[in-house]
């Protein structure tokens, strides 16, 4: 059964999210509706950022656990519940990379992927693209967490500028500046890694 099919009927009735999020501050059932609505998107976001099912599951769990604990203090602002939740997820992802960087896990996983046997000739192009994405993820994980959040929320989660700004607790202008600097730093990090290969 797909995620959409498992959603309660009430979700498909055009229930506005604001009322739902406000009810979820104290109601586990209301939070469960939001959970079912967003679990797939948060998981996909974490998977794209990490390239790993295990990390995606770990980050998704941590995101919703943190969100549930923080729900009593939730206030509806620009971007709403979605931006608030993705901000938590982006922070969890940055934290995961920070905790695991010292163990070389990211690099080891990338090396394992490259050494994975059984790659057919026709898959070389796909493997090349995946290698580029792995390089991008690795470079992204070396940036300051604020930069990681800005790029993740705007480019990987697909939030609109105003929503991403609200998620980061800043104005659109500040987000634009942060994003510009983050992109510049990311480009430099990628070039450094390409040069060291």
């Amino acid at each position, binding site marked *: 059964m797909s995620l959409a099919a*498992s959603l309660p009927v009430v979700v498909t009735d055009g229930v506005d999210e604001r009322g739902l999020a406000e009810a979820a*501050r*104290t109601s586990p059932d209301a939070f469960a*509706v939001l959970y*079912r609505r967003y679990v797939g998107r948060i998981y996909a976001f974490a998977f794209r950022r990490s390239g790993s099912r295990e990390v995606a599951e770990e980050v998704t769990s941590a995101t919703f656990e943190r969100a549930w*604990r923080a729900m009593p203090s939730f206030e509806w602002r620009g971007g709403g519940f979605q931006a608030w939740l993705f901000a*938590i997820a982006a922070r969890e992802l940055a934290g995961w990379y920070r905790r695991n960087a010292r163990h070389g896990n990211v690099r080891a996983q990338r090396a394992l992927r490259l050494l994975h046997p059984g790659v057919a000739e026709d898959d070389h192009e796909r493997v090349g693209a995946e290698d580029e994405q792995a390089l991008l993820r690795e470079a992204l994980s070396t940036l300051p967490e604020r930069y990681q959040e800005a790029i993740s929320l705007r480019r990987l989660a697909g939030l609109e500028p105003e929503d991403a700004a609200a998620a980061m607790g800043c104005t659109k202008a500040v987000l634009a500046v942060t994003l510009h600097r983050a*992109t510049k730093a990311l480009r430099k990090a*990628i070039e450094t890694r390409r040069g060291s290969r």
Partner: protein
Amino acid sequence: MRTSELRELLGSLEESAAPEPSPVFVAKLEADLRNMDQVEEAEAPRRTNTRTRRARVLVAAGPVAALTAAAAAAAMTLLPSKPHPRELKTADPGVTVPTPTSEAPPSSVPTPTTVAPPPWLPPAAAPSPVTTAVPRTAPTTPVPTPGEHPTPTTAGPHEPVTTTVPRANTTTTVPAPETLSLQCTAGMSAGNPTVFCGWSPSTSSSFKWYRLWRTSSGSPFAIVFQSDNRSTTGYYDHTVQAGTNYYYKVDITDAAGNVIGTSSVSPVTCC
């Protein structure tokens, strides 16, 4: 590396296929969340309401009465709207709704043990044990006969009474009604007063319908929503008016229309 190349790379990552989480993972995480206490974290997102924290500091500073009027008013308005279980008032102390036992709610959710039903509510809002009125008779010697067995009843502290009940009447087994947990919360939705009611899913194999009932002052309970989808465990009631007290309850019926489970009454002041 050009900026356009980097954008293209980021775009390819954003559009790359991502698998759906496994249903087992989704279900297990939801179960874990339901079993988890809801405690506000100190490490909440940066947008955490600082005004709420300030209000708590004000409250922690001492009794509200000891604060200035302005500070007390600010503290009261900024406090979370989560009702404390003890704030539930009892209009009729005789009406006690049993705590749900089939599915224990998270400890953070106020469990209404005694609710405030309005005077016009029938006292049978919650399931009560079936009792049989036995006329008090003179004491008799319990002599079981074939097909009968003695059933002691309580008539008084010093008046043991024994009645004889035919065995055939005592072998009928009635399944215990299912108890649902129900919580209703009032709020504003797109500028309109709204009440959200969420309830625990039915586990009965005879389940056919959920029915959400509502009443306000003086009117009998009326159905505001019903669904035969077992996974539908919430409903938004947009037909409420601000400043009105509402009482909700949910029950479940089987295919024949028999009520096979019910919840306690959840009072809500809108909004």
